[in-house]
């Protein structure tokens, strides 16, 4: 059964990808990309990767698509027909593809439980992590504890993305802004519904943030969702209003604070005499220590991701407004 669903989804993915290649209308291309990543999220669910699916849906189908649309708003939605021949790319792609296919031939068969992947390192995660870390969600315990350094790096990546976007686009300060004519004034229904939804969304974000230890979710997803709430607010009520709620400068403080929070946990454990990010040191009882550590660092991740996503959106949106004003 699972295989069939898998196959169907993969087929749909292939069709989407092909369409993307040949379509010239960039708006449609971006939309198809949204669909593409949503489909892949479904595949991830089908392959038991619920956390990944969650993230992919939130990021690929969500943030990325929004950003791309924002870019299109500034760059125009038509792709010009290109003259240069697509022969060389085809050759490159075929060679690479052939190499990959060649590589797959010795791959362990799909889904067999005795593949080396399931034999060597993973078993400890599956068997020991509930005892060592004490979380039912192994993904979270591996993510936050065993490979916490990776996640610190991930947070820093997000942070540096924010640095890059701000450096490139900057964020128009509120004070220089003109009268808040942006937003969707006349859509009364929308405004009401948005008012209704935003608190719920934020609530949900908090749920995801702190329930991540037990079910799918965690700081990253939570951050994205919370950011989505504010993006909705900004879309409906206009940038100036959302600037009034959370200003870009504040976000610029918030994002690094998340990183510092994360790294601070590591430093504290070092101060306690353990290795960097050794949560066992945070409390007398190692399990409790793991809990504290994971909650705090997830919080750090959440804060950073929220701040970064929102300020990236601000950057793009204020660009769009600037071009509207002009």
């Amino acid at each position, binding site marked *: 059964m699972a295989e069939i669903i898998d196959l169907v989804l993969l087929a749909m993915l292939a069709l989407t990808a092909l369409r993307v290649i040949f379509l010239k209308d960039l708006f449609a291309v971006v939309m198809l990309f949204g669909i593409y990543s949503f489909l892949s999220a479904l595949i991830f669910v089908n392959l038991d990767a619920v956390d990944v699916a969650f993230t992919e849906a939130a990021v690929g189908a969500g943030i990325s698509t929004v950003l791309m649309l924002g870019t299109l708003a500034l760059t125009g939605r038509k792709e010009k027909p290109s003259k240069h021949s697509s022969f060389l790319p085809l050759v490159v792609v075929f060679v690479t593809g052939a190499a990959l296919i060649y590589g797959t031939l010795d791959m362990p068969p799909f889904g067999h439980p005795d593949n080396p992947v399931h034999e060597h390192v993973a078993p400890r995660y599956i068997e020991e992590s509930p005892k060592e870390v004490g979380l039912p969600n192994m993904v979270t315990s591996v993510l936050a504890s065993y490979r916490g350094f990776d996640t610190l790096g991930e947070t820093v990546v997000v942070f540096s993305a924010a640095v890059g976007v701000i450096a490139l686009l900057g964020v128009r300060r509120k004070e220089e802004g003109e009268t808040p004519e942006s937003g*969707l004034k*006349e*859509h009364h*229904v*929308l405004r009401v*519904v948005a008012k*209704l*939804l935003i608190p*719920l969304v934020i609530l949900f974000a908090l749920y995801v943030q702190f329930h991540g230890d037990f079910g799918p979710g965690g700081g990253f997803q939570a951050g994205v969702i919370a950011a989505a709430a504010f993006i909705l607010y900004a879309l409906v009520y206009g940038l100036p209003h959302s600037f009034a709620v959370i200003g870009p400068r504040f976000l610029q403080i918030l994002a690094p604070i998340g990183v510092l929070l994360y790294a601070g946990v590591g430093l504290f454990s070092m101060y306690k005499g353990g290795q960097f990010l050794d949560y066992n040191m945070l409390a007398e009882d190692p399990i409790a220590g793991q809990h504290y550590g994971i909650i705090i660092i997830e919080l750090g991740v959440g804060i950073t991701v929220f701040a970064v996503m929102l300020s990236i959106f601000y950057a793009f949106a204020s660009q769009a407004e600037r071009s509207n004003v002009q």
Partner: protein
Amino acid sequence: MLLLDIISSILLIAGVFFGLSGAIGLFKFPDFFTRVHAASVTDSIAAILIIGGLLLQTSFDLNTAKLLFILLFLMITSPTASHALAKSARHGGLLTLAENKVKKQEHTSHG
């Protein structure tokens, strides 16, 4: 128990049917507004039916609550979305089929 299963599967099948019909309509219908109409069929009635079917599958625990929440959200959001679409299309100056007809006639009568 069996009864519940039967009902739920009926609901599900019905939901799937409406979903499909909505999709077909989305392709087949002539202009924007009619298409929005078809689409909204998908995300209103079809969604309700499917979630209802799923509700009957659950053993009335946390999942049930979650499903109900999802239903609630859909009930709020999807009509709003269709409304927003249509409204902005209207603002964009898009006309319905009928209006188009009228316009054409005016053209012919004038010219």
